[in-house]
């Protein structure tokens, strides 16, 4: 049975990491465990859990800011925010459906994995809302970066650097997010029957309109293109009508009922169309929208793509494929050629250990990343190999 360390305070976390470093033991960092399939498998000597680092440390509704210890369940924070009609702006994906995990996602994981959802196309990802951080580096030192104010350029931005580093640079102990008011209304238009290229053109038109479309997705298997606007009721009605007019060249845009729209976007966020797929590999591909349809067509022609859909107006492709090293390499090479990048989000542990889970990077980038890693975690004891072998 692997030893599990669950510090209850930041000071205990410092001790745990410092002693692991002294003993040359490696540590796998876990939060709620609901996203443990994300990244390469870590074979560490001990597990370091944030489960006991809990509690909301600051909530100032009038300043749109919340801080919490990293292991705080996300649902506790979302419930607190809901009481004041506020939300985390980036509509974080819940990975439980695709991984078949249970348990509680934590607020820290949103930062560690730079999670986002459909609203990313307008409001950014976790990185764009994360304004402050405390973490323990690989030396066992507690470090602060950023703060609780939304404009802060004091010193190097270790907040951005740590966000999305999947725990390879430090154990995040406390995170501070800026918030946004919950929209007072939401409406979704659906256009049916568009092919991929036409759907992406429609989404680009919508996202480039003055009506602040907050999400745009296209699900080829359902032949549906979805456009969402989030505004107060009067404004919402006006904008939906205006957008319907702009969309005429693409076909009839019909308004979805609120329950249907809610279900549709929760499905886009949590990758519901592909969650139950029996395919061996689930890819998350970030790409310029104008290159997306051609890329998918190429993958289909080569019998790599099985099923897929688009979010972020075409800037995000969720795609299933078989699990064969040759196919994975072909896909990642094609993405690179299209100036995008692909992450192997779901595959067996064995496959994720052998394949590039994250898009391979040029050697100069890997060298630089390695030096940055060493500056934070000199002995490489934190989540070794989680992102790339050696980082």
């Amino acid at each position, binding site marked *: 049975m692997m030893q599990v360390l669950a510090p209850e305070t930041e000071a205990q976390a410092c001790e745990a990491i410092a002693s692991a470093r002294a003993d040359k033991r490696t540590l796998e960092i876990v939060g709620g465990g609901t996203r443990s399939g994300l990244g390469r498998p870590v074979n560490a000597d001990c597990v370091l859990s944030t489960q006991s680092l809990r509690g909301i440390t600051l909530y*100032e*509704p*009038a*300043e749109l800011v919340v801080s919490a210890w990293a292991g705080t369940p996300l649902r506790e924070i979302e419930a607190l925010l809901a009481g004041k009609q506020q939300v985390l702006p980036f509509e974080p994906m819940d990975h439980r459906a695709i991984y078949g995990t249970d348990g509680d996602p934590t607020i820290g994981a949103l930062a560690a994995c*730079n999670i986002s959802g459909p609203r990313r196309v307008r409001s*950014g*990802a976790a*990185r*764009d809302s994360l304004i402050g951080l405390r973490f323990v*580096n690989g030396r066992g*030192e*507690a*470090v*602060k*970066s950023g703060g*609780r*104010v939304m*404009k*802060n*350029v*004091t*010193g*190097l*931005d*270790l*907040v*951005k*650097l740590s*966000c*999305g*580093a999947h725990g390879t*640079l430090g154990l995040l102990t406390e995170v501070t997010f800026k918030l946004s008011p919950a929209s007072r209304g939401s409406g979704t238009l659906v256009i049916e029957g568009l092919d991929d290229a036409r759907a992406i053109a429609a989404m*680009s038109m919508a996202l*480039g309109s*003055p009506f602040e479309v907050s999400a745009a997705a296209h699900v080829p298997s359902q032949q549906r293109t979805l456009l969402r606007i989030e505004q*107060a009721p*009067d*404004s919402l009605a*006006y904008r939906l009508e205006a957008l319907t007019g702009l969309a005429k060249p693409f076909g009839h845009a019909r308004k979805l009922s609120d329950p249907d729209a809610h279900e549709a976007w929760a499905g886009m966020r949590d990758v519901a169309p592909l969650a139950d797929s029996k395919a061996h590999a689930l890819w998350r591909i*970030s*790409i*310029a*929208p*104008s290159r997306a349809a051609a890329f998918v067509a190429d993958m289909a022609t080569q019998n790599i793509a099985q099923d897929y859909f688009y979010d972020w107006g075409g*800037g995000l492709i969720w795609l299933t494929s078989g699990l064969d090293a040759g196919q994975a390499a072909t896909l990642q090479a094609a993405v690179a050629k299209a100036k*995008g990048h692909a992450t192997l989000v779901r595959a067996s542990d064995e496959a994720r250990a052998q394949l590039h889970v*994250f*898009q391979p*990077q040029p050697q*100069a*980038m*890997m060298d630089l*990343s390695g*030096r*940055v*890693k*060493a*500056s*934070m975690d000199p002995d490489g004891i934190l989540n070794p190999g989680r*992102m790339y072998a050696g980082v």
Partner: protein
Amino acid sequence: MNEILFPTPDGAIMDRRDAILSELAAIASPGCLIVSEDERRAFETDAFTAYRRMPLAVVLPRTTEEVSALLAYCNRAGVKVVPRGAGTSLAGGAIPQEDSIVIGISKLNKILDVNLPDRTIRVQAGVTNLSVSEAVSPDGFFYAPDPSSQLACTIAGNIAMNSGGAHCLKYGVTTNNVLGAKIVLITGEVIELGGEAFDAPGLDLLGLVVGSEGQLGIVTEATLRIVRAAEGARPVLFGFDSSEAAGACVAAIIGAGIVPVAMEFMDRPAIQICEAYAKAGYPLDVEAMLIIEVEGSDAEMEAELARIVDIARAHNVSVVRESRSAMEAALIWKGRKSAFGATGRVADYICMDGTVPTGQLSHVLKRTGEIVASYGLRVANVFHAGDGNMHPLILYNVNDPADQAKAEAAGMDILRLCVEVGGCLTGEHGVGIEKRDLMRCQFNDVDLDQQMRVRAAFDPQWLLNPAKVFPLDGRLGAVESAA
């Protein structure tokens, strides 16, 4: 208050000036190397004009390859490099030192590609901020960060300082609007960070480079997000009988779930100064004024304004003045955006840039007035209230050394206050040399050491903008970082 220190110039480098210049001449394109004292003088300071140092030479390269060759040479020869955009830094971020060369990117000023369907634009980093918006405004788009210096300042400088502006309350600051950057490291290696697609793989080195004040490399190209402009925008003036009431009104608006595009604050001295310059129609009989901008269709703006006016009335607003034409709207913004220039007409000033939690605005405004008065000086406050980013302008006489020392001391006291109430030293101008020696107010040694180790991963010899951001004592280099 002691004068801000510069490191003692390296005599060995100073003695080799002629040899260094001939090496630079071999690398630089004809007409791109500046050596004469007269011409170098234009580069000896930036907008933090109280300090100046003459660099060994100035190079204005035309290509990324030239930047690469220059940095590779400097790295080999141990020559310090001070990167420069347009030199509009208010924090001394671009001020040289005597044993350094300046590499300015102003000749890298082309728009490379506009991609409206993907809502991106690729530019050389020496383009001005405003020219990016101008390139896409005929199609109804704009580039969101809009620092007051946007007519002159460059995208490279914006990336170095993570610049903000009046409209970032809704649209974010530079780091939220840059998708990719081509950066030349001190070794001369050229690296692409990010690109056309969101959330690049691996460590977010782009996020680290934004706001790094020219210490990690020189950015020569950038891919930026552009945003479709709203159907209309309207700034409205709200006058109050006290700064406290205006500050409380700001907090109440945000607390009510309204995030206007911009909420700008001016106190009485700032109103008087700006109105005298811009003739914008500001109310002169109020103690404080907010410029609040709303966006959307006419009906949408009316509805949002009605909600804001209700809140303002609950805070005893005394004047509400809507702009009735595009010209009036432009004048209202002209007054605000020329605040620093207009202030420069009546006195010398230093501009502070601390950010505070918006709930502390009233308290900090009151204390700022008391602090500056205690030094026998005057202050004008003009700032981004929605995000708590304050800009007290401390007025003094630059020709009186005692006056300057008082102004700097008052500024330091104000910044300490900002940190004490939960804020930070700088919201958008950067640390530069100005706030370098205050970094230990905000960070402890462990925090700073970690930042310096990360810095050393890029520039182990501390050649890039070396006298900035981190206190001059206790610096960590490559050797320590490997320990």
